[in-house]
């Protein structure tokens, strides 16, 4: 029970805290709207227009990835700069339980993106918001957030070894947008990109949202999101342990 309480309280705190950050609001709302607008115009002008709901969901997912990437990638470094990392590690609950709510919150903040791009598309581009399977969609959204949040845990625990985590986040934003097929049909990409996309939660997340929203069955994709989330959790657990041990051994916990 206390585990659930820690996760819930931590998640609530971090969601509120991130909502106050201008940078995160930009990443979550304005940037996806801009990319969605570019994509709407491109798909309207193109010979294969497709459905604009496809674009709206993809652009929203781009925002979820960006907020997870920048939020989780720099999570431990920020705790260092704010001088709270020692407390997070010294408290009785495992560091893993302290970090998970933060990485989940960064993915949750990305939901602003999804709402923003859907609303933007509906208001200015006549994107219909008729969900094919509302219940599946309602399940796909939290499953996607969990999948990305756990991927955020891996980012948080590995990026900390790189002094300029923000630059690494800059590096990974576009490639993941591309490789996970958020606005691009994966069939156009080289075949070797396929296996990379399969181990990335955003691929399954966007497929789940599209299957539930546009038509089809999203259950396999939802299951894959949760399964990958579990794998990321295990990886994140060991990576965090490794970081904590190294930081204690070398007395580098507070070094920025």
């Amino acid at each position, binding site marked *: 029970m206390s585990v659930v309480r820690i996760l819930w309280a931590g998640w609530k705190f971090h969601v509120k805290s991130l909502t106050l950050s*201008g*940078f995160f609001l*930009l*990443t979550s709302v*304005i*940037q996806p709207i*801009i*990319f969605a*607008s*570019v*994509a709407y*115009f*491109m*798909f*309207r*002008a*193109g*010979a*294969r*227009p*497709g459905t604009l709901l496809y674009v709206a969901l993809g652009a929203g997912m781009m925002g979820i990835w960006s907020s997870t990437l920048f939020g989780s990638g720099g999570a431990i470094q920020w705790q260092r700069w704010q001088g709270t990392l020692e407390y997070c590690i010294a408290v009785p609950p495992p560091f893993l339980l302290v970090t998970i709510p933060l990485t989940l919150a960064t993915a949750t903040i990305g939901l602003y993106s999804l709402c923003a791009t859907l609303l933007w598309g509906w208001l200015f581009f006549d994107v219909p918001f008729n969900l094919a399977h509302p219940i599946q969609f309602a399940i796909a959204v939290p499953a996607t957030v969990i999948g990305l949040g756990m991927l955020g845990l891996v980012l948080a625990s590995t990026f900390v070894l*790189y*002094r*300029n985590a*923000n*630059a*690494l986040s*800059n*590096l990974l*934003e*576009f*490639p993941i*947008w*591309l490789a996970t097929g958020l*606005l*691009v*049909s994966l069939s*156009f*990409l080289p075949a070797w990109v396929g296996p990379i996309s399969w181990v990335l939660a955003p691929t399954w997340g966007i497929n789940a949202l599209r299957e539930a929203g546009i038509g089809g069955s999203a259950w396999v994709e939802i299951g894959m999101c949760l399964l990958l989330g579990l794998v990321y959790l295990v990886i994140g657990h060991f990576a965090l342990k490794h970081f904590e041990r190294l930081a204690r051994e070398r007395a580098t916990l507070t070094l920025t």
Partner: protein
Amino acid sequence: MTVSLRIFFIGGLTAYRGLINWLSPWIFIPSLIVAPIFQILLFVYIGRTAGVGSDEFFVIGNAIQYASIPCIFSMTHAIAGERYQQTLAYILVSPAGRLPLFLGRALPVILNAMFVAAFSLLVAGLIMRIDVPLPTWPAIALVIFISTFSCTGLGLVTAAIGLRVRETAVLNNILFGLLLIFTGANVPLDELPGWMAAIGDRVPLTHGIEAARQVADGAGVGDVGGLLASEFAIGVVYTFVGYQLLRLMERESRKRASLQVA
């Protein structure tokens, strides 16, 4: 005169090196070498998925548009960064002429942005097998120079705003995104609503991108002279406005004693 030239060249370079931490390869390579190439690839593949434009259209458009990152972010930080370093007061209390002081910082910004745009164009062009003939490169270099000069003018405006507002990174990110739409880097201006196309005609990079596309298709410098003149004129206007805004912000900061308020 000599003093002004020293402030312009040596002062500008020193300030740039001191304030722009992007020059570390750990930041420069991921942010300004690799990221633009992936931005180009992303839009090339969105274009293929939507069935719009050619690969060349997106490669050239995005390579030049990405120059706005170094132009706007570096220019802002090369001036507003003094405030965060608590050195702005020392700079402004000095008798140095403001024109060489501020504009000198723009020169390294332009050179860096030129490198970023040219490198992205070259590498993404090779990856996507875009045929940009070797003899056209001097003309493309000229186009890139004028485009980056023009965009650095916009950077001067944001630098001035950066002397008053705190969230310059947010502002610059928004501008970068807007340039992605309005410059025609990814959507031809005639596909945009009239009011958006009208704005696009008045922002940096639009004419430069169009000129670069025409040059890559075989046009000479003379053929794109009008576009280059428009791009240059836009750059002059933004630089003038940016410089005047900087002087205004300096006066206001003195009046309100808000010089070092970061």
